[in-house]
């Protein structure tokens, strides 16, 4: 069996889809953030796979992955701080409970 670019792209697509399912269907805010992390992992896997099989000498995918990791680390830190702030105010970490601004 030959494992090339396609296998990695399909695996990353499956990981991203499961993250998408979790982000849309879960009601706990922490679980939604965990699903977003799953999607970030899939994106990084895609970048590294393209780097390995298309531009192995230029290392472009490595740089992209490092910066994507910076952004997703900032995202998870801010997201969890936001969950804590909302929890302190309304005593809930359910997405369905965060409907104060709903028209």
């Amino acid at each position, binding site marked *: *069996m*030959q*494992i*090339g*670019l*396609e*296998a*990695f*792209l399909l*695996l990353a*697509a*499956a*990981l*991203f*889809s*499961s*993250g*998408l*399912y*979790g982000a*849309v*269907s*879960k009601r*706990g805010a*922490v*679980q939604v953030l*965990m*699903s977003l*992390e*799953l999607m970030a*992992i899939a994106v*990084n*896997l895609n970048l*590294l*796979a393209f*780097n*390995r099989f*298309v531009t*192995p*000498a230029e*290392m472009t995918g*490595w740089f992209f*992955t*490092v*910066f994507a*990791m*910076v952004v997703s*680390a*900032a*995202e*998870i*830190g*801010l997201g*969890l*701080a936001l969950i*804590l*702030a909302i929890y*302190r*105010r309304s005593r809930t*970490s359910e997405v369905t409970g965060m409907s104060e601004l709903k028209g």
Partner: protein
Amino acid sequence: MTETVNAVAFVALAVAALGGSLAMLASRNVVHAAYWLLEVSVAAAGLYWLLDAEYVALMQLLVYAGAVAILLIFTIMITLRRREDATRPADFSAGALVLAALFFGVIALAVQAFEAPAVQMPESVPDLAAFGAVMFSVDGWALPFEIASLVLTVALVGAVWWSKEGDD
């Protein structure tokens, strides 16, 4: 560098990553779900290693399997008042399932249609010294690097600001 990677290692890591993500979605206990995400992070680091990106794999272990997992577990601990709160109803949504399946179908079709350009593989993997030289050269990625450190600083200050005891 070769055109392909080790099939046995790929299948093992792919099963670990995909199975872990499905277990994370299926587990009704939030703490168990956080541990499954930790397992997926470690498997993903293995996949990065398989793709000859040792540095990124180590960063993945430090950032996701280390810092992010601990942050998640602390947030779960703070926002749960009782032990029973960790067990949640299984959130099943047919619409979300259809959306995810459609997304996967579209991507799979695109991957089937995609033809990778023929590439001349270099003799060896670029080492970390070459990576650092490009990263910190002004013609390379020095400016994005500085902006990234600014983004991280602002995010950290913002996180402390948001989560501090407010006077409202």
